[in-house]
């Protein structure tokens, strides 16, 4: 166990470095830009009220006139301490502004993640009971089909079908950003489903590939020859191994989920960080963009860390290896 702890600590340190590089990427992408960050931040309608001197003054106030490495170190320090600074024009703290949207998005993505995992695992296990059977083929074809549907099309169709035609759910989520989280949860049913339609396919492919590999393995054949029931073979013997390739893809999956949720949130007008991000991008509200991008990356890194721990729990060989090495 202490070795596992040591490994976890090692991964944490690594995650810290990864996040530092992430901060650098975000900084380079947002601040070392062609053009001037400050004037770009001020909306056109406002710009008329500032003189060049005022702009210069604000620039130095914001420290935008200092060398790039210094600014990066500051950005890095800010992000790492979750102090996201203040908006450029109004000097309002970014943290409180994005707090509720981030939580709402976390709820959306979290619920979607859980629903997707449940869906993927049950579909994958069901399909594996009879590989090549009708159910398996149907699920594979369906997921491939849904995968090919762009998430912005799926979301819109969901709104039209479930909200406008069937009236089962609201078409526009009017819940305020700081609504009680249960309200947000209730409002996220359709968005979660829309996210799942596109997202399940990717995970399902990985899980099914893992299942096929596991089911073709010698140990499953041995279990069959030893007279174990099919369901038990699928669930107890094949599934845990089959989960590993899927868990290895966690980082890309969660990143994809967050990308998708930006689109889905826009369609449903979900009060999440996606809308906040789009707005921030439009206005080049750089501290906000930095904060959201960084927090998204943090979510991915944390999810990956959890997935690694899950693999550790599922595969004793990895456990032994990490103890040795």
């Amino acid at each position, binding site marked *: 166990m202490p070795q596992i702890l040591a490994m976890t600590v090692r991964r944490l340190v690594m995650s810290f470095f990864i996040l530092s590089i992430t901060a650098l990427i975000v900084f380079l992408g947002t601040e070392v830009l062609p053009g001037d960050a400050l004037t770009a931040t001020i909306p056109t309608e406002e710009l008329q009220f500032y003189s060049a001197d005022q702009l210069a003054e604000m620039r130095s106030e914001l420290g935008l006139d200092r060398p790039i490495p210094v600014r990066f170190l500051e950005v890095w320090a800010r992000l790492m301490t979750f102090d996201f600074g203040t908006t450029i024009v109004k000097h309002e703290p970014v943290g409180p502004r994005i707090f509720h949207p981030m939580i709402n998005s976390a709820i959306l993505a979290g619920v979607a993640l859980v629903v997707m995992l449940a869906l993927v695992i049950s579909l994958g296990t069901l399909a594996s009971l009879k590989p090549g059977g009708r159910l398996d083929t149907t699920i594979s074809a369906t997921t491939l089909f849904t995968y090919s549907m762009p998430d912005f099309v799926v979301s819109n169709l969901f709104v039209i079908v479930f909200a406008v035609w069937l009236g089962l759910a609201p078409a526009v989520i009017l819940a305020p950003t700081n609504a009680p989280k249960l309200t947000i949860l209730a409002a996220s049913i359709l968005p979660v489903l829309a996210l799942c339609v596109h997202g399940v396919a990717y995970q399902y492919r990985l899980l099914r590939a893992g299942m096929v590999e596991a089911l073709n393995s010698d140990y499953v054949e041995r279990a069959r020859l030893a007279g174990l029931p099919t369901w038990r073979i699928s669930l107890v013997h094949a599934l845990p191994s089959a989960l590993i390739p899927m868990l290895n893809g966690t980082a890309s999956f969660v990143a994809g989920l967050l990308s998708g949720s930006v689109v889905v949130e826009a369609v449903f007008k979900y*009060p999440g960080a996606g809308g906040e991000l789009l707005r921030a991008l439009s206005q080049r*509200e750089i501290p906000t963009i930095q904060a959201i991008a960084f927090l998204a990356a943090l979510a991915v890194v944390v999810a990956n860390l959890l997935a690694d721990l899950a693999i550790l729990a599922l595969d004793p060989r990895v456990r032994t290896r990490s103890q040795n090495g």
Partner: protein
Amino acid sequence: MTTISKREFLRLLGLGASALGMQSAFGSFAFAQETGLPAWAALPAGAEPKTGGKLVYGQTYPNWAVGTSDNGKHPYYWVDLLTRSIWNCLVWVDHDFNLQGELAESWQADETLKVWDFKLREGVLFHNGKEMTSADVVASINAHIAQKGSGFINAWFESIEATGKYAVRFNLNAAYAEWPYALAEYRLAIVPAAGDDVILTDGIGTGPFKLVEVDNRRGFKAIRNENYWLKGRPFIDEVEGYVVNSQTAINGFRSGQFNAVFNIDPTTAGQYESAAGIVDKATGGDQFLISMPKNLDMAWNDPRIRLALSLSIDRNAINQIVYNDPGTWIGNDTHMSGINPEFLPREVAYDIDKAKALLAEAGHPNGIDLPPVVFSPSFPEMPRVMAIVAESVKKAGINIEIREMPTDGFSAYVTEVNKPYGRPAVGPVGPRNPATNMSRMAVNQSEEAGWTGEKADAYRALYATTIAEPDETKRLSMYQELQRIAQSDTPAIILGGRRNMLAHSAGVVNLKSHFQNWGSRFDDVWIQS
């Protein structure tokens, strides 16, 4: 015996006043005596308003300014959420372009047109129960000046003082005959007096609804103001407004979540009507404009090319295709809107051959490639207007890319390409009275776009004279002269003008689309059934 309605009577009175040339100098002050309501607040004949119900509306106009602030309670950030649900200004421009006293009961200028006295309505209570007095108005106006709330008053404003509990006086640094119009600007809301750093941030006004909740940048909820100064109003118990995009608005309307949508995309009118919605068009609305920078070595520094560009825009096609509104007015390349009485149409607005001839004369017989301009869409149909413009000018041999960009792209272009200050300002301009409209090329530094030269100087000089002219008839001809100067030099091109449209369900009564995006009232709307 012919019965003349009170409203009609007052209109005739107004005509009489304007015959005296003093109409704008004296605010309307007549009351419908029986109800204690100002005449402009009268309901249509035969109306039987009901009390209660809830108005939930969607608004497609994205106000980028609001995103830069956390403070959704600040009236400046309410153009999209329709300011007049919560706040009032001293003056309101009604649906027929008339000035109506809102919190001001009447006003009067001295002969120099530099000192303006406003009499305030008595007994108006703020949402917090405090009575509105001149101190509040003075504090509000001073705060607006300090916070640069409106570019249209700062240039003339000298000071404001209380001349009584219900009277204030504006002192201007130059004559301004149409000062009350300038005060009708939506931002210039009257709020309770408070410290410099607190004032305007508490969401308290004198409007028909009291703010309950603002979801910054998304929407608001408000409830009836029981102490509203228009007695017996509003009819509705609750109002909610949400900023949505065009598609979400349709979905929300069709799913029954919204019973009204402001600023609908004209092409989508059918989506509302096919769901039993009623579409209401205002007489006018915002115009889309490119003001041409002249500070760099660009092709359009030559007025012939600017004029050729203007002449080759098929504005009728825009009216027909985008607005399904053929035969309506088209822009005249000044900020003046077709609904302004002073509006002076171009003699010829669309003439490909003349455009080609002008281009040839300017040395481009085989057509010309103009530098690209970028815009960020404010109204949903704007990309389509731009597409038609870019397409139609090709016929005259003009290639110009009109690129859609988020706000930042626009700014990047401004700072990168057009140093130091010239900018092809592409965007919507709201309809206002001629004084404000014509000021935009003269005193508003962001929109004059570096218009220089003899004609620009002549324009500025004439503008100063015009707004100092007390006689309205004379002013009208001077405004037209200003338009002629601008048109002859074409520093800006009006691509097209929209008529604001809203859609509401059959149950919503008396909800009218105002030609000014922020002008709609909520105190005379009711919910049937």
